[in-house]
């Protein structure tokens, strides 16, 4: 008898299902749980119950959200921030959890470190109290962000109750043109489906343009799933995936690796499997994209103009556009390339991996940034590698600050903030009001596009700046 064709997500779901309730909720086994400084609410709930972490060897602590990006060799100056970092150290030590702490050479942003260390593998279920946990889906992993109560539940039981999401396939077919990055693909998708478009769905990214992406590119793409409303997004593992994993510290070795690859090859969507929703994009039509407003779906090609609310027929939409333009300090109908910036940020779990830094450096090499800015590598190991390649010199020579690794100016809770009213070209994931600081104005784009904005002092098309350069 032939089995019903299954999607990649169906396979991941059923391989983690321990039990199912009558109302449809399933108890799922959690293979990896990452905790960070912000996970303290979860640990408090565990302590309040007089419990301990059930399976400490499947939990990893990583200091990223609050860590300073300056003066790492000195004690943390801000007492509240120091307390957040030491609380994670205490919670990890008390429960026997491996910690990549502030001064560990493996420290970095959780969604960069997991893959880098080989902790993120195809076929796993990974959770973390952070919405960008969707990033790990790049390996064909069921990975999603959870709140503090779910963090506590996983700590106490190594399981989680979930209702099965619907399945959505986003196919990007064909070849992207020169100068187009995974970030442009992600923003193009979000602009199409909207910020709530994938709510209630598990996304699978497919198509030839996705297959052609490196692991770094796939990580960027899956990272942004949540900005399209999807709690998780994934790419089926392939040779690119296996090559990336091989030899990583926590990855299976030798015969175990070969056996794993054999299993991982089964993690694809079967021919004829059904999705609840399908969206297809033409890769060749994707231009470099920037955001103009206060949600990631306010995204347009760089040669466009921002919307004019007076030309909008839907009054709710017009009111939204007016509010967003007012917050962003942009005139209705303004050309994107006429928008001057005050600073730049290159960093975050979205775009601070080695390829991202290389892409920005390719534009900045031999040029000067017209505005100040921070470059914060995705991990301390990415930082070392970039320094070996001389990328730090390029950033510093351009007038930018080369700092330590952490969430930094993406969320601003370590003190790296965009001052009120200033406009920042940023490689991050959220242009929400106040995200980078109260009154901060964020424009999201790829690392190369941020570099182009730095060099010109305004939002700009990177493609002319790449002419004659090796990328």
């Amino acid at each position, binding site marked *: 008898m032939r089995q019903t064709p299954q999607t990649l997500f169906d396979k991941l779901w059923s*391989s983690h299902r*321990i*039990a199912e*309730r009558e*109302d*449809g*909720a399933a*108890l799922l*086994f959690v*293979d990896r749980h990452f905790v960070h400084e*912000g996970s303290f*609410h979860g640990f*408090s709930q565990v302590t309040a119950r007089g419990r301990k972490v059930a399976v400490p060897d499947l939990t990893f602590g990583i200091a990223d959200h609050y860590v300073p990006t300056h003066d790492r060799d000195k004690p943390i100056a801000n007492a*509240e921030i120091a*307390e957040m970092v030491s609380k994670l150290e205490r919670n990890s030590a008390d429960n026997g959890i491996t910690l990549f702490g502030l001064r560990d050479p493996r420290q970095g942003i959780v969604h960069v470190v997991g893959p880098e260390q080989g*902790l993120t*593998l195809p*076929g*796993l279920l990974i959770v973390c*109290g*952070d*919405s960008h946990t969707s990033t790990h889906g790049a390996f064909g992993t069921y990975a999603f*962000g*959870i*709140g*503090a*109560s*779910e963090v*506590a*539940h996983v700590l106490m*039981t190594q*399981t989680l*109750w979930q209702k099965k999401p619907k399945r959505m396939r986003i196919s990007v077919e064909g070849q992207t043109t020169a100068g187009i990055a995974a970030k442009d693909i992600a923003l193009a998708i979000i602009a199409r489906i909207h*910020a*709530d478009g994938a*709510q*209630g769905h598990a996304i699978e990214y497919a198509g030839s343009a996705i297959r052609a992406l490196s692991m770094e590119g796939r990580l960027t793409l899956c990272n942004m799933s*949540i900005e399209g*409303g999807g*709690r998780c997004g994934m790419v089926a593992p392939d040779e690119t995936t296996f090559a990336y994993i091989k030899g990583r*510290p*926590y990855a*299976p070795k030798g015969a175990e690796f070969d*056996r*794993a690859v054999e*299993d991982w090859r089964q993690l694809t969507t079967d021919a004829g499997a059904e999705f609840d929703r399908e969206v297809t994009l033409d890769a060749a039509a994707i231009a470099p994209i920037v955001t103009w407003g206060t*949600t990631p779906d306010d995204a347009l090609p760089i040669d466009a103009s921002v919307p004019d609310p007076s030309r909008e027929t839907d009054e*709710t939409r017009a009111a*939204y556009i007016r509010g967003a333009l007012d917050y962003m300090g942009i005139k209705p109908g303004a050309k994107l390339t006429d928008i001057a910036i005050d600073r730049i940020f290159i960093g975050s779990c979205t775009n601070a991996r080695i390829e991202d830094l290389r892409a920005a450096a390719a534009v900045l090499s031999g040029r000067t940034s017209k505005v100040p800015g921070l470059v914060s590598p995705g991990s301390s190991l990415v930082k070392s590698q970039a320094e070996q390649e001389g990328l730090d010199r390029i950033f510093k020579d351009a007038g930018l600050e080369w700092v330590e690794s952490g969430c930094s100016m993406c*969320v*601003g*809770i370590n003190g790296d903030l965009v001052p*009120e009213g200033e406009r920042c070209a940023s490689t991050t994931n*959220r242009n*929400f*009001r*106040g*995200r980078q600081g*109260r*009154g901060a104005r964020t424009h999201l784009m790829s690392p190369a596009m941020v570099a182009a904005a730095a060099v010109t002092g305004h939002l700009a098309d990177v493609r002319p700046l790449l002419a004659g350069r090796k990328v």
Partner: protein
Amino acid sequence: MDKFTRLTAKACPLMRQNIDTDQILPARFLKWPRDKGLGTVLFNDIRKDADGNDLSDFPLNKSAWRDAKVLIAGRNFGGGSSREAAVYAVYDYGFRCVIAPSFGDIFAQNSVKNGLLTAALPEAEVNELAAAIEADPAREVTVDLAQQTIACGNRTYNFAIDPVSKNQLLNGWDDVDLTDSYGAQIGAFRAADRQSRPWAAVKAR
């Protein structure tokens, strides 16, 4: 966890789209333990000016809605960051139900764990309900979870909620207690899983 069954209360319309969790609770308050009073900083940067004074045109600051227990909002309420403290802020301020056309998945899940009902109505009905309340701010709504209804004046709306969330809110279930009762199944799963996915284990480095 507190149960949610039925509630009759005033409703405050906050008719903006995409009120993400950064707007619900700005990140700088995430260091706060819950008992420090997260309700006082709910919507802080859109509710108060930079000096901490209430903005008079923000709906929560209007006297008619000071004691509202239901919040009505635009599409995609609670998208973005997974911060459960955003739910604590909404709940500790005094809200027990949020009505909107759609919600961020993680926010909705966090809400269920804290006894906060997220009731989804079609956008046109949310707009109609908000308009009725703006016309008569003292008007109360009755939210009935078992029936999945919201009554306001002579109108009754049927809202959507998935059965899992409904079940949990009605019963005030504690997930951990429930999961503990599945100990044997978890043990059996792990034993079988070690055979079928040996590569999934974490090996000491």
